[in-house]
């Protein structure tokens, strides 16, 4: 158990964690100012015999200050976020050279279709595996999400990537895994009684391992 964000295992993770920390600092400052202010005012101005309240209806200058500062801060945050958002999810953000994997979500399991040795989906050498996502390291991977029945959500915490799979739509989401290892994927959108069981083992291979794995799969060899 860690008190911070999970392992940074994709190119997104660095940017998202950085933004997270920035927002944490800004909101942290606001948090301390307000909570400390409340406690301090409560102690300093608590009622004592002979104490009288200061009769005032407000101060326009103060109002302007604490409207402008939050406004500028949040709009700045908005623009920075938008910059990353366009990179990660923008209309044409999926890099052209991405390795395509067809992900078909259905009630309570994921079907992963791999392009096979020829690297192209939709050819005869594709093969489908249940609940196992194998990706090469340091390569852009695009996940082509379809759903058979209800809304599911493709979510790998260590890659910081999440995208709903909506029945009737084909949605593409890309990421680039950077740390080889074995991780887990869970469905993040309530999809029925087996929602909690839609677990996928995510394996990030080095390029060599990945090619070997593809070869074994192509010959119909099992795991």
């Amino acid at each position: 158990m860690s008190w911070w964000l999970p392992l940074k295992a994709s190119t997104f993770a660095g940017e998202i964690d950085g933004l997270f920390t920035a927002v944490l600092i800004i909101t942290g400052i606001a948090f301390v100012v307000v909570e400390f202010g409340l406690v301090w005012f409560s102690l300093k101005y608590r009622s004592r015999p002979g104490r009288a309240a200061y009769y005032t209806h407000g101060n326009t200058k103060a109002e302007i200050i604490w409207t402008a500062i939050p406004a500028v801060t949040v709009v700045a945050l908005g623009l920075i976020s938008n910059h990353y958002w366009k990179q990660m999810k923008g209309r044409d953000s999926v890099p052209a050279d991405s390795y395509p994997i067809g992900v078909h979500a259905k009630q309570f399991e994921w079907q992963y279709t791999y392009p096979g040795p020829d690297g192209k989906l939709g050819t005869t050498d594709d093969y489908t595996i249940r609940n196992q996502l194998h990706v090469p390291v340091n390569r852009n991977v695009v996940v082509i999400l379809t759903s058979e029945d209800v809304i599911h959500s493709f979510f790998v915490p260590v890659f910081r990537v999440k995208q709903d799979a909506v029945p009737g739509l084909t949605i593409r989401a890309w990421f680039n895994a950077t740390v080889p290892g074995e991780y887990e994927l869970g469905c993040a959108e309530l999809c029925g009684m087996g929602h909690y069981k839609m677990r996928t083992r995510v394996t990030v291979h080095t390029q060599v391992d990945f090619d070997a794995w593809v070869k074994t799969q192509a010959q119909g060899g099992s795991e």
Partner: protein
Amino acid sequence: MRKFGLVLAVAAGVVGLGAARQSRTPVQGGTVTGKVKFTGVKPAMPKIDMSDETVCAKKYTTPPTDESVIVGPAGGLANVFVYVKAGLPAGATYPAPATPVEIDQDGCRYHPHVLGIMVGQTLAIKNADGILHNIKAKAVKNRPFNVSQPTSMTTPRTFTAPEVMIPLECNVHGWMHAWLAVLPHPFYAVTGADGSFSLKGLPPGTYTIEAWHEKYGTQTATVTVTAGPKTADFTFTGK
């Protein structure tokens, strides 16, 4: 086009027993036995990828294969549901037996794959795997249900209307399928590996007997039963 091979070997010998009384526990009476044969190309059953479900995978030495078409060594077709479709004396009622019919989920597969149950009889759905299975019964005449079993437990269900073939499936394991028939009478049987079946205790009369298979459809045969054995064979042909 599936070709129907309707081979009907009806033994002529009919041994009458006596007037069939209306509703009585059929102790003796005619029996219909037979064999369901399979001709043609035996389809190769795809392997089931249970690698992610270790609890089930380790229950198999050889990788499990799909169970939709199982042909025995002698060419007998298993998992064929044979039952009396029509011809029972009108108004005859058969009390549902108290003992529940069991269907077990062991090794991420349904045991049995095809089964019959009487209206009002309890179906005891057992979960020997101890992992989550959900049972979705896509019934039409009966109330459909979709219940889950997260651990080893038994869920009882009963059915109110006769319905031949309610598909049962588990959504957590897409390959798990079973077929349940609900009948108002006890005259049904599922063929074993050798493709043989026997319907016992039939009061004399002419009956249409139907053989149902999940992939090759249904075939019917009419059999007149007096007392003593009758035979009715079926042959399904793979394309």
